[in-house]
């Protein structure tokens, strides 16, 4: 037992102890068990009215009630409470354990995640006996129970990951946004999920499952590396895992495209509806957005860690913390797909599919997102005392959200001609024009290029 506890993550042990000292755990467990017993009681009363003969949906009805109660309990204990605790732990920089011990950000995040997952499993074990009763009441098969439960768990784990991400920022304002958005969004997502899995499980192909799982894995790993970046010590190369992950994703997507091209067969990515250009632009947009949240300089520590030879040092610059290297990397990833796509579409209006195809929307939107990131980086140069994320928010609000709001107002007042004009420099254009997006991005790219060149020169000459 002693050996086992030593091999466990210290954060897992700490959080687990805190869970069992907390007053919230017995309260939520009482609600969970009481709610389930009440559901059984209601079902029993319904059966009494029906001469003890369950109808076809009795089990399904009970299952849905148990699932609902489980989701509420898991949301409170595994997402909200750990998030609130993490915020509390990080609120005072002088008492922030992540800065006062020698644990790595990866260990801390893993500990936080595993402690929440352990509580999820604990809650699942409390629900299992009631699930068995639901199964025996008929109306739902074991496979349906397992599938729906697995998919709800997957959403739950995603919520936990987001909650820990919000917690690691230490920002109460973000916690409120998470709290209120999850109140409204989670039931909707779970309802859709339950509807898909309980009614159409047989119609979903194996490849679709793999695609959904891959997308899920992408989001999970992305949140994980982003979390590590947030927890990283200032001036460390904390963005390195995120950049590396996104570069690997871009490389894998290109490889998959090459394979499907030579074998003339779609694998993970349905290339007929989602081109490789769109995927690469999307990844570039993510890199650019994160770059806009970063400081300009890489910091002395990164410079010290960088290889001394010119070519490895130049490559290291691209994966090092700093907004300049981020925007440079984003353009390197996006430039060829954008040119290729632009060459195929500019001037060939008839070749464009009617309406908004995902490819046009993603490529066009990505160019705008990169452009907004560039404007944010330029803006943050003028307000160095403010956090870069503020510059990014200002850019997004001024250049995208405000025009969208005005366009909405003009639409209501039947001035759609004006709204079309206002939305011209946003991704919400009525008919996406890649040339406008490119000109818009180029306007920002020119001053931004000076910042990139200056930072790259500073990085390489050290």
């Amino acid at each position, binding site marked *: 037992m*002693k*050996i086992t506890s*030593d091999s466990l993550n*210290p*954060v897992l*042990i*700490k959080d687990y*102890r*805190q*869970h069992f*000292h*907390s007053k919230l755990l017995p309260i939520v467990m009482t609600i969970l068990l009481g709610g389930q017993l009440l559901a059984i009681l209601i079902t029993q009363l319904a059966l009494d009215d029906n001469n003890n003969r369950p109808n076809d949906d009795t089990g399904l009805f009970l299952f849905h009630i148990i699932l609902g109660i489980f989701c509420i309990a898991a949301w409170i204990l595994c997402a909200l409470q750990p998030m609130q605790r993490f915020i*509390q*732990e990080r609120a*005072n*920089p*002088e*008492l*922030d*354990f992540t*800065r*006062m*011990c*020698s*644990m790595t950000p990866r260990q801390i995040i893993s500990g936080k995640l595993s402690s929440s997952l352990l509580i999820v499993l604990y809650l699942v074990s409390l629900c299992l006996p009631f699930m068995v009763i639901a199964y025996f009441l008929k109306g739902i098969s074991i496979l349906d129970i397992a599938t729906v439960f697995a998919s709800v768990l997957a959403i739950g784990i995603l919520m936990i990951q987001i909650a820990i991400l919000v917690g690691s920022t230490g920002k109460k304002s973000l916690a409120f946004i998470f709290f209120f958005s999850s109140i409204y969004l989670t039931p909707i997502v779970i309802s859709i999920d339950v509807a898909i899995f309980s009614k159409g499980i047989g119609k979903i192909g194996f490849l679709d499952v793999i695609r959904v799982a891959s997308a899920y894995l992408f989001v999970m790993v992305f949140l994980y590396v982003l979390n590590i970046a947030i927890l990283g*010590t*200032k*001036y*460390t190369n904390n963005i390195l895992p995120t950049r590396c992950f996104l570069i690997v994703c871009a490389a894998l997507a290109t490889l998959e495209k090459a394979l499907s091209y030579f074998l003339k067969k779609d694998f993970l990515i349905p290339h007929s509806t989602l081109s490789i250009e769109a995927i690469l632009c999307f990844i570039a947009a993510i890199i650019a957005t994160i770059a806009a949240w970063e400081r300009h300089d890489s910091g*002395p*520590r990164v410079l*010290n860690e960088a290889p001394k030879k010119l070519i490895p040092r130049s490559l290291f610059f691209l994966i090092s913390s700093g907004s300049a290297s981020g925007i440079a990397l984003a353009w390197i990833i996006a430039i060829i797909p954008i040119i290729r796509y632009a060459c195929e579409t500019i001037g060939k209006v008839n070749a464009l599919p009617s309406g908004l195809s995902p490819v046009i929307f993603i490529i066009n939107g990505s160019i705008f997102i990169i452009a907004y990131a560039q404007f944010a980086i330029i803006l943050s140069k003028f307000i160095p*005392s403010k956090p870069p994320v503020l510059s990014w928010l200002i850019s997004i609000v001024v250049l995208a959200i405000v025009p969208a709001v005005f366009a909405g107002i003009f639409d209501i007042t039947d001035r759609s001609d004006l709204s079309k004009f206002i939305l011209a420099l946003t991704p919400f254009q009525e008919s996406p024009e890649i040339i406008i997006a490119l000109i818009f991005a180029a306007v920002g790219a020119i001053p931004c290029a000076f910042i990139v060149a200056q930072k790259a020169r500073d990085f390489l000459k050290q």
Partner: protein
Amino acid sequence: MKIQVKNLTRQFGAKTAVDNISFEFSSGHIFGFIGPNGAGKTTTIKIMATLDNPTKGDVLFDGVSTVLYPEKIRRIIGYMPDELPSFADTQVWEYLDFYARAFGLKGDHRRRTLQEIQEFTGLGPIRDKFLNTLSKGMKQRVSLARALVHNPQVLVLDEPAAGLDPHARLELRELLKILAGQGKAILLSSHILSELQDVCDGAVIIEKGKILASGVIGELLVDAKHHKAPKPQEEMQQQEDEPILMATPIITLKIKTRDKQDQLVRKLLENPLVKHVEANAYSEVKLEFAGLDDQIPMLIKQLLDDGFPIVAFEKLDLGLQDIFLKITKGEIQ
């Protein structure tokens, strides 16, 4: 171990909290870090503890930079902030156990270490209490225990005596002396100067982000006795080779009178050897006398002859508090 604070600067926007300060201290010594609230003590300490990054400069621990290698520094430094988390769901032993595990202490070694630290800091009787139920003094003990859990070579303590009762202050003083005796380098920040005088070997005096004086306590006392003007850091370096001009020592005297306090102050100010006079509410007058010891009885005789009903007088020794007052206009307790 030698700890060098080198040209440290920390700016928050337009405000410079720490302005190009340098000092050093080493193992086996307790070094006081003195300054009024807002002087830049906590900012400097946070940089030393890797909780913040300097705008310029660095802190080196045996040549290892806090900026470049914060993870290495965290293993050799024990930081005690001036507060402790008040978690309602964490017991004292759990809090210490977490940090012991987080620093990689395993098995019997961890248990033994925690046992020793709890005994050393007197936490045994309260080990099962929750953090939010502890008094300020107990919290300070827990905080010290937490800072010691990984047996650091350097201890940085931010206002450790704040909020402690006199008995707890004495105990803390003794604990610190034992730790220094074990060869640890200790930096102790405080604005309660009487706390530092008995325990520190050296001190740095900081105000508005700049160092006003630094050195071993004896040197600081001599400097203050001779009423030298505060030397900015650059000047101190430039003047190292210059001969020291001996100034007339300043003697601090306290005179108690039955009445005529105001007249006494005026009379004293007429004396060219009296530099500064201060009256208080207890019919006492404190003055700085730039004469020799032999001249004190003559001064008192003169006052008695002038009809002042003097009932007592006392020659005061200079303390750290006086040094601080002489070279700063700081707010001290």
